[in-house]
């Protein structure tokens, strides 16, 4: 059990999903006490690989050895038994059970006496784990339902740690964590390393990955394309490996001053949503990109929803000046020429089992309507074809269903269907969340084009660099209130923003 020995070796691993070859001949090792990063574009097979290690999927061919022994987990429980734990990408707690029970869910047998579970012991054990690993303690007796995303993630993390793992797998968990909890997580990873344990981290954030890991493995199209030593590599080198060509480093705006017209497009006054936001007032101008940033529970996402009429305001007003109209519902907002791209693409924006045509035409139905409410099939098809071509969406036809498209293409449709319209106001909530570098750059170019056309954009984002890179003005939020407004030509740096966020 010395440091430096391989804890896990993966050799010639292949995984197929139907016709898709998701993992191609993967060779991959993790050493004891090593913090390993795994990175790649969407669809490159990272999550598939990690899921096989965690026992969620079984591999089709190849082999894995754990501590020199053959390792072929049939279920996550098998993996747990071998002291491998995973925190999954999607939300993974059971809302109908208390937080404390969630930590030991599936393993309550160990607290069972004469057939009955001793809940007191369960809670005590859960409490111990949160204290031991310095995680923020949630109310353990309360149902997990209704807890914040971040708290739920912490419960998941506690669950993974409760098996005292030799190898911890973290799949994209930092994106839902606030700054201070990220720091806690980094501390925890360091602590594990100190104990001679190994961690495998997946994240889209290249800089973060370089910062926290020892080595990085890069995947492309399901295969390993490179390995790098975190201390020696650069973000550009990793990105180049990911996309297979060199990326121009700068895809944000290059100008250093705000650049928008005088005309006010949107006025928000004293907007309040109970329990979410308070006293939010701002103006948005023609051709302006107004950034909103803050911790995940600061209310930035609520601002987007509220402006688009999706929340009931307890006070205040939202006025679309370009249409001279107060907006109270999403229906009214849509009619004025506003657009809202929500954060969660698959569950809040797209109909994934419906066709490309159905998805693209959805926001434009009112415009496409002819006499006697007639929606001519030809018109719908024409619009769809135009959009598919304009945004070079890779599809086999307008009637193909969305679930057959890759993440990047879905996001192009998600955004493109709005840009097809005569748009005045665009509300974007984390538009580049979970898309790869190539699509990201493309989305920024679309935003720049929209800006040029005079569209007013509200850009809400968890990623500070993104808002700093794109916005004319920046609103920093904390606890549901705007704490600071910074112009692009003022003190437009991460430090000044973070100061106001925390």
């Amino acid at each position, binding site marked *: 059990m010395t440091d430096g020995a391989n804890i896990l070796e993966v050799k010639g691993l292949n995984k197929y999903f139907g016709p898709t070859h998701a993992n191609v001949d993967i060779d991959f090792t993790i050493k004891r006490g090593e913090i390993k990063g795994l990175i790649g574009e969407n669809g490159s097979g990272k999550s598939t690989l990690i899921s096989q290690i965690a026992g*969620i999927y079984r591999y089709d061919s190849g082999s894995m050895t754990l501590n020199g022994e053959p390792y072929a987990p049939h*279920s*996550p*429980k098998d993996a*747990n038994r071998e002291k491998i734990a995973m925190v*999954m990408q*999607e939300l*993974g*707690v*059971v*809302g*109908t*059970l208390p937080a404390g*029970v969630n930590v030991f*869910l*599936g*393993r*309550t*047998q160990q607290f*069972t006496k004469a*057939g*009955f*579970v001793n*809940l007191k012991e369960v809670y005590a054990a859960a409490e111990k784990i949160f204290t031991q690993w310095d995680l923020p303690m949630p109310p353990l007796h309360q149902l997990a*339902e209704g807890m914040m995303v971040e708290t739920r993630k912490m419960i998941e993390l506690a*669950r993974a740690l409760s098996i005292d793992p030799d190898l911890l797998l973290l799949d994209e968990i930092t994106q839902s964590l606030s700054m201070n909890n990220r720091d806690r997580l980094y501390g925890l990873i360091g602590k594990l390393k100190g104990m001679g344990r190994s961690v495998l981290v997946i994240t889209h954030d290249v800089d973060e990955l370089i910062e926290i890991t020892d080595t990085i493995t890069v995947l492309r199209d399901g295969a390993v394309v490179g390995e790098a030593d975190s201390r020696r590599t650069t973000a550009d080198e990793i990105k180049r490996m990911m996309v297979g060509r060199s990326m121009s480093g700068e895809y944000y705006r290059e100008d250093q001053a705000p650049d928008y017209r005088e005309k006010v497009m949107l006025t928000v006054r004293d907007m309040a949503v109970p329990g979410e936001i308070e006293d939010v007032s701002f103006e948005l101008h023609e051709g302006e990109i107004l950034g909103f940033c803050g911790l995940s529970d600061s209310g930035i996402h609520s601002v987007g929803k509220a402006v688009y009429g999706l929340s009931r305001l307890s006070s205040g007003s939202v006025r679309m000046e370009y249409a001279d109209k107060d907006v109270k519902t999403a229906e009214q907002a849509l009619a004025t020429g506003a657009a809202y791209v929500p954060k969660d693409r698959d569950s809040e924006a797209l109909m994934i089992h419906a066709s490309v045509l159905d998805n693209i035409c959805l926001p434009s139905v009112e415009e496409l309507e002819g006499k006697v409410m007639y929606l001519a099939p030809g018109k719908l098809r024409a619009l769809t074809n135009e959009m598919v071509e304009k945004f070079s969406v890779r599809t086999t036809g307008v009637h193909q269903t969305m679930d057959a498209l890759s993440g990047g293409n879905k996001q192009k449709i998600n955004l493109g269907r709005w840009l097809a319209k005569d748009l005045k106001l665009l509300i974007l909530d984390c538009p580049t969340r979970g898309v790869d570098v190539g699509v990201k750059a493309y989305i920024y170019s679309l935003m720049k084009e929209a800006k040029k056309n005079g569209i007013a954009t509200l850009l809400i984002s968890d990623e500070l660099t993104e808002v700093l890179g794109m916005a004319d003005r920046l609103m920093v939020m904390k606890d549901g209130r705007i704490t600071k407004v910074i112009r692009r030509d003022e003190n437009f740096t991460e430090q000044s923003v973070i100061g106001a966020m925390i």
Partner: protein
Amino acid sequence: MLVVAVIVCIFLAFHLISGGTFLQMDNLAIVISHTVYPTFMAWGLCFLFACGYTDMSIGGVVVLGSFATGVLGNMYGYPGAVLGGLAVGLILVFINFLIFAFSGIPSWIAGISLAMIYEAIAVAVKLNPTLKPLIETDMNQNIRLFGSFPWSLILLFIGLFIVYLIYNRTTIGLNIRAIGGNQQVSKALGISLIRTLLFVGLITGILIGVAAFIQESYAGQTTVKTGLTSMYMIFQPLAIVLLAQILQRWINIIIAVPICAFIIYSVFTLLTTMGVPSGTLQEASLCVFLIVFGIIGRFGYKGVVK
């Protein structure tokens, strides 16, 4: 505390409305013995709902279970009656769960199909010349003890104790609720979906079997129901569970169920004493009840409702 006070007030109000007859001992005894079998059905529904299923065929199962209770009870006494009801409940509900778990058909619609099949079997039994006299004979009076007060109440308390422990204090109970809360996560945590669902089938089956046994003991004979009228049998338990779900905020749902059963049956007894005809306006008021509970249960609910 508040809830208890409210419930006491409700009963006092009933007492006044009924002109002082409601809280008399024999009236209470009637109401209580009436509530026992729907309570067991309602507990069964609690487990079903906990894992996200609905089973519309339970009424049909109770009818067949009651047949078995009556016929086997008359042949072999108590052992026959108990085992007959339990066996039928267990087997049929278990079959239902096999179908729900493996077919992927939404449970409520599969349940409707199964209800049709069970109703048809009941009719076939009734039309069979050898079986007809058997099911049309009243259940022997001396083995019907558990249908009447106070034995039914004792059964109710025993049931309450056991069901409460299973739901709240066993691994299988926790797993059932986990699966209902988030199937994917539960699966990833090594909770076997199929195994748990089959356990739910088992537990629900036993509860439904007990309900059938009590029903037959209480009524002595069961009529055949056709044209999906057996589905009506779950509406009262359904109303009970819906009300219990509202009270869940204050009282554990398993304990809330018999309380709600008692309230709802009191209301119906009251309606009858007030001269509201059953078969017509009582049904209408049950409908209003269900809808009102449905509305209250959804107050402040923000998610998608289908």
